[in-house]
């Protein structure tokens, strides 16, 4: 008999803060999770489960995301777009994140550069005028990035996708207490999940002053507007065109190891900013 946990939340961070979810991941009798909700929230939730499993060295659970349980006010899930456009679109529409090609013209930002290979050294050097947190999965900076890393406010190494998942990055951000966070990456997935992590950072700060479950859509969008995401990569060749829903399901299965996105009419969609996690 599945047990449904319903979380009235904006982003993954509050789901993961729930002891029930962490305990469920540690519980060997729970074999599978069924995750439903807004597509822009389901993706980071599933990613967060995967990152927690990796950090705690837990046996990965089978995760199912029935496609009929995914929803979105914006973007239209049936809209046909290129694969490379989906994650930026979700950042903009779900969270209000500013997806830009260049650094913003402001001086009160923290830059979180989470790089796969090193990225555009010129942009990174330019970003050095901000307090900067620099990280890569391998923990060794290529020669072009070493000077940037030495001057950075903080550095980290992390193999996951969301740089805000390791406490060291969130702590560094807390020290800076930024009004705005610019996320730079040469990897679209790291950019997407870290930008949502940055939105979460602001939501957690806000939660000190008001109950996060009372947040309205415009509150979340206003937090997202405090985040700019900049992809440090040369434009790619045209990528496959499909619906947003199809791209989301492909991403869930290929990048996040979701077992299945087949529709399952035992489960319906969830309304509002809610995430439903059924434990099986």
């Amino acid at each position, binding site marked *: 008999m599945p047990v449904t946990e319903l979380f009235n939340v904006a982003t993954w961070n509050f789901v993961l803060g729930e002891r029930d979810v962490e305990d469920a991941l540690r519980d060997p009798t729970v074999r599978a999770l069924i995750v439903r909700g807004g597509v822009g929230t389901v993706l980071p939730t599933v990613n967060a489960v995967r990152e927690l499993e990796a950090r705690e060295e837990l046996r990965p659970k089978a995760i199912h995301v029935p496609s009929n349980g995914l929803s979105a006010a914006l973007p239209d899930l049936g809209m046909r777009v290129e694969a490379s456009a989906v994650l930026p679109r979700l950042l903009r529409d779900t969270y209000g994140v500013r997806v830009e090609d260049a650094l913003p013209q402001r001086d009160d930002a923290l830059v979180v550069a989470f790089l796969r290979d090193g990225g555009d050294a010129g942009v990174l050097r330019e970003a050095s005028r901000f307090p900067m947190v620099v990280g890569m999965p391998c923990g060794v900076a290529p020669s072009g990035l070493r000077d940037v890393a030495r001057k950075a406010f903080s550095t980290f190494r992390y193999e996951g996708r969301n740089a805000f998942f390791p406490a060291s990055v*969130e702590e560094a951000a807390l020290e800076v207490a930024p009004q705005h966070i610019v996320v730079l990456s040469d990897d679209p997935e790291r950019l997407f999940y870290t930008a949502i992590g940055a939105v979460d950072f602001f939501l957690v700060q806000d939660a000190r002053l008001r109950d996060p479950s009372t947040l309205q859509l415009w509150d979340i969008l206003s937090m997202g507007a405090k985040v700019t995401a900049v992809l440090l990569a040369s434009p790619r060749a045209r990528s496959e065109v499909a619906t947003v829903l199809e791209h989301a399901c492909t991403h869930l299965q290929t990048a996040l190891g979701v077992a299945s996105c087949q529709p399952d009419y035992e489960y319906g969609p969830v309304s509002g900013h809610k995430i439903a996690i059924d434990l099986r």
Partner: protein
Amino acid sequence: MSIYRGIRKRWIEGDYAGSYRPGEDAVEVRSGFFRRYLGRDHVRVPNVGFRADGVARPLIIATDVLAGILDGNGQQVAGQSDGLYYANVANAEATLGTLSLLLERVREDDLLAVFPGDQHENTSYFDLNAMTTTILDPDLGKLSPGERRIVEQRFSAWIGKRLPLGIWKEIFLHQTPENPGAALIGKEARNFVPHCTEGIVEYVPDVLRLFEAQRRDIDAQMAAGALVPLARWLPVPKDGLTVDMPGDARGMGGNKLDDLLGAAFTGGYFQGDDHRHQKRAIVAGACYEYSVRLLIEHLVDADIQVVCMLSCVKGLDFFSSKLHTAHYLKELYGRKLVFTYDWLEPLLGPRPAGWDAAVQRVMQHDRAQHDLFWKDYTAQMARGTTASGAEIVCAGQSALQALRVA
């Protein structure tokens, strides 16, 4: 899945430290305070390591090795480091010589070493415009009459709102004997005396030299591309008697002492009946009756074998004796605690030149101090008072007066 189904505990063997990923040489620890001395905030901390004969090297923890600068009259010089090691006063610190030899061995032998240091509140660091956690309750009956008068006269517009520090101060701080200026002062200044002030206090030169060498090594690692460099000599801030400072409501921040203890004894092995005794920490620093004692108790709690090097520990001579406190602690924690004036060569390597003479000075000082203390102590116990004349055990009205109930 946890190995323990009860409430979560920090130091359960087999569930703490361990050897997470065989071959991994260090544990990452981040603290903003590292940056002040090491230039970086995020470092990898190796375990204590082993000597060639298989004996684990000790973790060195020297607490509050902070310099104090006194003038010719023995008064703290305003604006200068206000720690409790008075290196500028001739013959004032018998233990600085021995401590210096221990720190030199830390440097020569790359021993893992942690330096907790008080960083008490600095009045000038308060931001009067920042928000406190206090919302002014519309029920003014919860305020004292004086506070209520201030609110009604000056701050009625703030009722029901979160107070900025400047207004909080106006409402809640008054002139008192402990604080005649009604100033924002820290609990240490209010309850004891102003000392070890953040931004003013500084480590003694021997420790600063270690940090400088560590910083150069970190720079070299960063130049070679390391994003999270290795570090063995680590500063740790604290704010009171207890040596560990927990994180905030989300478990973030804190002074990372327990993370460093975890890193020190990760891998190895340092667990189980055949290895547990290899978790050893050598404790030094000041003041013996306060932070050193609480550090010892914290380490015993963490299931670590503690060696208290009395030769490198500064006591407070006004009202105590090292030997007396050693007796008290040994009674309580005898199975996990060793006191010694000696240089333990299997742990620390060859005895350094000058050690014997330096330790003799400390022992003579401590013995003389104990004799003086014991005479006063027995007299005080007979009277039932402390050195300052306060009743040791209060009853009735005097207890209530001390608690401001009467």
